[in-house]
């Protein structure tokens, strides 16, 4: 178990990166707190796997240093780092039995036979493969193989960190839920530092204490699921977290108000004057619909009843936005006006959140 520190870390797959765009992972300084469960969330190709491979030493960063418990390991081999990593697609040793597969990392480290046997049984129980221990790994389903991979990742107790690279992609949904719960209880039990890469927000939010959102090679926000929901630091976070994502409207911000297509919207707080592209963001949960009164005129395109609530698709000032209305609410049919909860509006300049005057710097 270890604290992992990134110091000015960046990586480019090109040998001579010229501009910032050439970096798959842009400069990052961060402490991964010992014993915390992190989810690394972002769309494909945003640098999540690169980051993971740098931690495990499969990749040497082209810039910066990495420390485990304040000891530099930038040039240390994967084996020396004592890391467990599970990959997106199942990696099993086909010619070995399931038991040998699970025992392999322990045997390579010269563990005691009785300890190995006990540990393998424990892991087999955890992944529900006690029955199959004696058979060869070849010919098992992708599900089963991935469970073996997971098991191999968890079999060592003394690892510095456990890294998961979208490990549940090939697993069927029912089992996914079960394994995720297992991983979580494993984390509670042993307190390993865990980093879990995924592009599935539900997976990230249920698994992790802290969610790290990445976008285009950059870490845009690190926070608890609640923080990500309530105050997304970047428009990408707003859009990526939540179902559907945050609504964004181009606006001119002036003191305590925003002007969208000629209508003033109260922001509930004051803002300094802003440069660049200014947008206001509000989550669909905090959009109110009415057939009279103040607000922005809107047209309803579609109402989807998803059971727990109604999802209303609207057009406001040329933007498509979403609103969530409760099952009891009647959705007005004409003269629709939308308004936003003032406390729940975030202001963005060039995609980054702007703190209101008097708000603590995040």
């Amino acid at each position, binding site marked *: 178990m270890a604290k992992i520190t990134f110091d000015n870390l960046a990586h480019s797959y090109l040998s001579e990166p010229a501009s910032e765009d050439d970096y798959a992972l842009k400069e990052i300084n961060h402490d991964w707190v010992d014993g915390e469960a992190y989810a690394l969330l972002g769309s494909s190709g945003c640098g999540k796997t690169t980051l993971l491979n740098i931690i495990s030493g499969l990749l040497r960063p082209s810039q910066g240093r990495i420390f485990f418990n304040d000891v530099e390991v930038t040039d240390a081999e994967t084996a020396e780092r004592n890391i467990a990593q599970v990959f997106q*697609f199942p990696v099993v040793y*086909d010619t*070995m039995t399931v038991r040998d597969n699970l025992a392999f990392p322990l045997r390579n480290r010269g563990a005691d036979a009785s300890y190995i046997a006990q540990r393998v049984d424990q892991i087999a129980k955890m992944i529900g493969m006690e029955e199959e221990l004696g058979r060869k790994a070849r010919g098992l389903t992708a599900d089963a193989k991935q469970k073996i991979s997971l098991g191999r990742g968890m079999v060592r107790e003394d690892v510095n960190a456990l890294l998961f690279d979208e490990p549940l992609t090939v697993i069927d949904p029912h089992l996914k839920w079960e394994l995720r719960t297992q991983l979580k209880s494993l984390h509670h039990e042993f307190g390993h530092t865990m980093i879990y890469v995924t592009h599935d927000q539900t997976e990230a939010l249920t698994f992790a204490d802290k969610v790290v959102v990445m976008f285009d090679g950059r870490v845009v926000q690190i926070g608890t699921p609640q923080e990500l929901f309530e105050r997304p630091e970047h428009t990408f976070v707003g859009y990526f977290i939540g179902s559907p994502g945050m609504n964004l409207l181009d606006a001119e911000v002036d003191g305590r108000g925003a002007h969208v297509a000629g209508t003033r919207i109260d922001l509930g707080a004051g803002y300094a004057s802003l440069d660049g592209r200014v947008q206001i963001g509000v989550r669909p949960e905090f959009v109110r619909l009415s057939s009279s009164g103040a607000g922005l005129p809107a047209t309803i395109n579609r109402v989807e009843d998803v059971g727990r609530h109604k999802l209303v698709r609207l057009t406001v000032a040329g933007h498509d936005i979403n609103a969530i209305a409760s099952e009891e609410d009647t959705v007005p049919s004409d003269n629709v006006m939308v308004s936003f909860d003032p406390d729940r509006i975030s202001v963005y300049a060039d995609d980054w959140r702007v703190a209101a005057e008097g708000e603590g710097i995040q």
Partner: protein
Amino acid sequence: MNKTDNQKAWFLVLPVLLLVAFSAVIPLMTVVNYSVQDTFGNNVFFPAGLEWFRETLQSDRLWGSLGRQLMFSGIILLIQIPLGVYIALNMPKKGVWVSVCLVLMSLPLLIPWNVVGTIWQIFGRVDIGLLGYSLAAIGIDYNYTQDALAAWFTLVLMDVWHWTSLVALLAYAGLQSIPDAYYQAAKIDQASRWSVFRYIELPKMMGVLMIAILLRFMDSFMIYTEPFVVTGGGPGSSTNFLSIDLVNIAIGQLDLGPAAAYSIMYFLVILLISWVFYTVMTNLDRQEGQ
């Protein structure tokens, strides 16, 4: 499911039947025909029963050639398969050197058998050949025209030079198909280099290696041109392989009956060994899966 009963469908098989008949069965039957007949010339034949088979099986000639043939195939397989795998493991995985390696390795495969024979025939000569002359110069008694061991050495070396590339290329293709994640996982699991070979590379190469072994076995078992050009079966009959022996009977002595019987048995031996080989390999494969 309801199956339609339509016996006319048999006609659909007819084209294949005809094709196989003309390409394989009928030519083979002419050989079978010769093997059970005798002649005193003038194109007059009379049945000889299984006489030729009996005679061939009882002569030491067939058994001697068969023994030499098996030994030759055994030796070259024992050298070429491990060597080919070793070369493949050490070839670059990406970059410009990949193509350079591939081209260099393919070169021996493109040279016609006759030419390969001639190259080694000259290369090994003690008077003008680089290999023979050099060996003689450093005091090694090497003369493939007089010494059976030297002749075998030359033939084996020639075959290794000619065909190891094939094994290496096949093994290389097998290696290239292994996803990076396997090597990464092995690093994470702290597997040794040997473990990586034993548990990742070898199992993934097994399929192509089976093909390589089968191909190399059949090819070496039928080898004719190269030893014929280099040693002509000599010295004595020390490099007289089945095919060389067969040609001597059929063309040298014009004994068509015994040659036909010999051919059929030669063919059956290849068929038998390949079948046994294939069955054993696929069974091993299936057992591993359980």
